């Protein structure tokens, strides 16, 4: 197990290294911060000065070498726009994103688990149709529109919740509901769990448990559910990484200062160090989450061995 984790960590570092090279090159293809930062009447000298100041006059491989050198010291550089250290900006935003994603995932899973299990156990019936309908509905409604509608109902009409921004726990409810109910997490988990449960419920060991007289509740909620979780855990782990930076729409609608909006603003300003920082952070989170998921497999299915 330890060898497995060590091996995966090395893999993670190599992958991050490749990603850093890719993002470093690709982000420079989209335009230069010089064009966004300087006034329209900036002279060629002003442009040259700023290019030099930002180190963008150096050959690309030199710039990359400097970037990697700093990265090795956990220094992601300074934001071109705000002149603040990228690490500081990321650390300011990451807890906000984790909070939003964490609560929204909790909402999704709390709804998706019973729905998925009920749909599988009562397959073909009205509950199955209802569960699949809820999943389809959540998947079909754009989060942008859903967010605005929730604001209209709960903030403007009922006056129960704040319309946006960070503040107390109440401020978190609407964005988390939007993401939890109308993101892809709910729909994805319901569908995966339903299909996986149907397969497991038809398996030999479940039939054997029933013959042995184990109660249906134990069969479904203990034996079958645990075995049906592997694809769900994979999906949730994978989706967690995506959500950390992929909630830009919800963050924008609710003025929630998370990683997604930081990335969006950085792209608008061609703020290379921030874009690189966000991509590396999100990649690291995704890779580490996948590692955790791999470890969880062993718990869910003891037959899985780590070589």
């Amino acid at each position: 197990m330890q060898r497995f984790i060590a091996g995966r960590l090395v893999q993670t570092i190599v992958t991050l290294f490749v990603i850093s090279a890719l993002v470093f090159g690709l982000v420079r293809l989209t335009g230069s911060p010089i064009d966004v930062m300087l006034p329209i009447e900036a002279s060629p000298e002003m442009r040259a000065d700023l290019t030099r100041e930002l180190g963008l006059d150096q050959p690309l491989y030199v710039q990359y070498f400097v970037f990697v050198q700093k990265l090795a010291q956990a220094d992601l550089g300074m934001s071109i726009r705000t002149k603040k250290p990228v690490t500081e900006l990321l650390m300011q935003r990451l807890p906000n994103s984790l909070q939003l994603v964490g609560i929204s995932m909790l909402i999704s899973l709390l709804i998706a688990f019973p729905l998925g299990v009920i749909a599988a156990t009562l397959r073909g019936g009205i509950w199955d149709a209802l569960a699949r309908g809820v999943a389809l509905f959540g998947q079909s409604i754009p989060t942008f529109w859903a967010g605005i509608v929730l604001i209209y109902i709960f903030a403007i009409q009922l006056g129960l919740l704040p319309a946006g921004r960070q503040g107390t726990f109440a401020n978190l409810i609407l964005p988390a509901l939007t993401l939890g109910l109308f993101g892809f997490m709910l729909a994805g988990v319901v569908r995966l769990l339903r299909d996986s449960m149907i397969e497991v419920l038809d398996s030999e060991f479940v039939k054997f448990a029933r013959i042995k007289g184990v109660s249906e509740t134990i069969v479904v909620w203990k034996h079958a559910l645990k075995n049906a979780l592997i694809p769900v855990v994979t999906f949730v782990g994978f989706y967690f990484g995506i959500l950390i930076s992929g909630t830009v729409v919800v963050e924008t609608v609710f003025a929630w200062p998370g990683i997604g909006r930081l990335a969006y603003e950085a792209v608008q300003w061609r703020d290379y160090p921030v874009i690189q920082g966000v991509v590396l952070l999100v990649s690291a989170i995704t890779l580490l989450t996948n590692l955790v998921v791999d470890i969880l497999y062993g718990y869910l299915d003891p037959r899985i061995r780590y070589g």
Partner: protein
Amino acid sequence: MTKQIKGSIRFLPVVLLLIVAIGLINPTSSVAKNLRYAVQSFGAETFDPTLTSVTTGLGFAGPLWDWLTTVDVKGNLSPGLATSWKSSPDAKTWTLKLRQDVKFHDGSPMTAEDVKFTLQDGFGRKKAKSSRSKQFRKKIKDVEVVDRYTVKVIMQKAWPTFAHDVSNQPGTEGIVLPKKYIEKVGWQVYGRNPIGTGAFKFLRHETGNIVEYTAVKDHWRYKPQFDKLQVMLVPEAATRVAMLRTGQVDIAGVSLDDAPGLAKKGFKFARDPQASSVRIHLYGTYYKKAGPIGKLDVRKALNLAINRDELVQTLFRGAGKPAAVFPVSELSIGYPKGLKPYPFDPAEARKLLAKAGYPNGFKIKLFSVPTGGFTLHQQVSEAVAGYWEAIGVKTDIVPTDIGAFRPLYIKRPQAPQLVGQASIFATTGRLNGASSLGIWWTKSRKILQLAENVDDLYAATQKAGTVKEIADLTEKAFRIIYSDYRSIPIADVAGILWAYGNQVGGITVAPHRGYVTPSFATAVLK
């Protein structure tokens, strides 16, 4: 009895929790006398005014500062940090008398040394990137401290509009920065912990989220009626409106679309006194490879095809008027008065196209790019494309952003993929119309290069000795541009407006170039 008390006590935590929850959940709870402002963008999000070229930053950091002179909504100059200003007959030396009761937020007095420092070591330093720092660096030869409150600015050549150029309208260069403080902490620290002479003192900032200020109660000019000012970044328009309606904020930047609904709910509005010039640029009209738009008849046809009145009444909801030139506003020096917007005459437009050799029209690209805080760029692009399609000009709308688009238009010579094509643009005219002329129209300065035949007039404005001379030359140039149909003015639109309610009884908006901001210090407490 004891049992009853014990029973009640058992429920006490639950009751307390409920009270706390209700307190937390109540969206309208707020600290008294806080002025909360929801803004669409923080711009460059820096407090160092020498580093920000994009004046969106004024909504973010503007409350910190005062300017040497002040321009009112009619373009008239009045005292600011300077009580008076006087130019030598050749306009090469300006003497400014400063107020003697102005303090920075750290309690130190503002003196002539600070003005000298600001002009020479602030906006004059090589690292300065504000829109006119290059102009200030090149034109100012020396700054002499005559006495503690008198400063003499010596120019390399005549600068008749200097007093206008250090006002609040053109940009950030008229701000006075604290010499001692910056020399002590350095520019980098100043950018994070700024002080100024404005009616609000910096308290805290969370990047991309919020900036907070406290009111300076003994400010020399204003008596802020609010204790604290919170400027919050809320990018989505619908959310700003919702926050305003639910009392989460007191002032919000809103769009023209949202205004009627808010007015019905009793909200009031403060308007940008200086309109945004919304227009279509035609690129490289004098290049040999300009294609159809190289011909005057085609440019005229493209202009006559557009129903400006309709656009103003529908898209801009009546909050503007059709424009004849851009980008100068009525308070600009050299605004060509009396020019009528081109009429709407599609029949004539079709005839002109046929006459120019394009009876079946032609194809043109229209780059749709958001500029100047103007949010209707896509809608205007679609409307213009519709008008042009009606006369046979097939218009391909190309959505882009300023970061990708600017390299095309500042290229020398202009990028081939742009020559012969068009784009939407919206910016506010500068106080000095000659500056707008130089940037947007001249061939020699090679920035926008929209016209080739106004360079001599622009060059003359740079040698002019009086404001009137500059005004006359600028006006003449704009009339030439008008008669040549060099590009396509659409409308002067009050594109930025603020809705307020709740605690606010009224607010004044001072003219600034580009992105303006309400003068929070003037906000009246209801």
